[in-house]
């Protein structure tokens, strides 16, 4: 059983790691999902016991299965699904502004920006005044 569980965890983690190393950032996120899932399997495996359901009142003199690992896996599942949702929205944002999800293209853009930085231009300062023309009415307070 231990061997089977560890093989499954290793396979899921390995495929996840393979996908994380791909060029397509969408695959990177899918790889992260797989890697997090291997962690959940690992949590469940950490307290894998056979027994009665752990609901009060507990049966006398009988083994009870460990409820804690399931609670942990559930919590971690919720966290990871929300982070994945956030990552997907970031991908969408990157896609709308760069028209690509290919890492090699993105890193070319990154290099260009880095060169701009070397010339000591500050892109944030330049672009700030353009965005959100309705700023003034919101900034009455602090002055």
């Amino acid at each position, binding site marked *: 059983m231990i061997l089977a569980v560890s093989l499954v965890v290793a396979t899921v983690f390995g495929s996840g790691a393979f996908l*994380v190393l791909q060029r397509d950032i969408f695959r990177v996120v899918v790889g992260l999902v797989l890697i997090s899932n291997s962690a959940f399997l690992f949590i469940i495996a950490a307290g894998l016991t056979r027994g009665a359901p752990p609901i009060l009142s507990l049966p006398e003199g009988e083994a009870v299965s460990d409820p804690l690992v399931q609670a942990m896996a559930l919590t971690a599942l919720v966290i990871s699904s929300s982070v994945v949702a956030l990552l997907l929205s970031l991908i969408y944002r990157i896609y709308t502004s760069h028209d690509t999800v290919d890492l090699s293209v993105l890193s070319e853009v990154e290099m260009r920006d880095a060169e701009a930085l070397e010339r000591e231009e500050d892109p944030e300062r330049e672009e700030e005044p353009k965005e959100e023309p309705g700023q003034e009415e919101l900034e009455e307070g602090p002055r």
Partner: protein
Amino acid sequence: MTGSTLLVLSVGLPWALAAALALLDGRRAWVGWLAAAGLAASFVSTVALGFRVFREGPVEVVMGGWPEGVGIVLRADLLGVVFAAVSVGVILASLAYEVLVGVRSRTFPALILFVAAGLSGLCLTGDIFNFYVFFEISMTAAYVLAGYREQDYQVRGAFIFAVVNLLGSVLFLIAVAALYHVTGTLEMQAVAEEARDVNPNSLITIAATIFVAFSLKLGLFPFHFWLPAVYVGSHASVAAILSGALANIGNYGLLRFGGYILSEELRIGAVAVLILGSTSIVYGALQAVSRHETTEVLAYSAIGQVGYILVALGIGGPIGFSAAVIYAVVNSLNKALLFLVARLRGSLVGAAFAVGAFSVAGVPPAAGFVSKIAVFKAGLAADGVGWAVALVALIFLGSALSFVYMFQVYQRLFLAREPQGSYPKEKTSPRAARALVIALAALVLVVGFWPEPLLVLSEEAAAALTGSTGGGS
């Protein structure tokens, strides 16, 4: 107020306020100030809690009214309170700064509060799984914050930040599950006690996994690759939070897990920790010297500064741990000050930057001197004359290099006749924002002139680590 009320307030207040403020438009100034007020209240309650813990010992609350040993524990000892107070203080300064220059996103104040809630929670929890949950709360909010202002390069930075740190979180989660498997409990004290009887062979793997997870968050040398890309792009106040407050997850986590729960494994792996720390110091300093852009220099400097904390941790014992605490606290203040001041212009801003630069380089009037001295002392206490000499030489070299790169930046920003960069010199920044960074700089100076409270605090905090595990090395 009782200690347990203060403890619940410190964690719960920013949390509840964050949930409420998420519904409001954060761009309005009053929402920002409401968030700042809530954060200030949480800061005050953490400091009050700190006084109580200092006088009366650790405070413990079992959540949900469960009997002890069943429910989840919030536990404040001095180490946790010190890190919680520093992190929340840095976040408060950054939030006030951002409200003064103008918030540009609806969610900004709420996200900041979530980061603060997560950070104070993880410093004050007594349960390793809750530690994970709290740091995911603050990390997730930080992923969004890294993309604040939504420039293309910032969104790309946020993506890199989220992917790399999610991997780190998963590694930590695996280590938590493994610790639960070998010790059968999640409560920190119980884990630390049980871990002493477990075969170190299985624990050393877990310790290494935890070390890698926290090093990824800290941006330590072999795991630093993501850090410059994120710090350089992000907005000043966000960069201050990332390197001044969020990095404390790594500092505190390494101290708590390495110095307390797995202290025996830290002792076994001390040489590896020392070597990684030394490499980080040299690598960060050399890269920082070769860079031009201010934030880039600061990012590489952050990699180098983490190295000192790691060296202190590797030396271990009461001296090493208290040096690590001092260094982490002072480093948080320095980084917050420098990142906030770097984009401001106007009178006295140069002076504030100079104070931060002095502090990073460890020149006497600033707080950095105190922390460098502490690490020096720890270096002298290292086992064996060879190690001691090598470490002291290394720390000296690192300080000299940091002096060079900090003043290169200072020259370029404030002394050059033609101000380089597209930001014209005539346009001075809001007076209130300048007043804020000058106050931060004054705080750095005060800590440098009157270091006794910090020294006593760090010694007591280190005693909280080593005392209960029987004295360390």
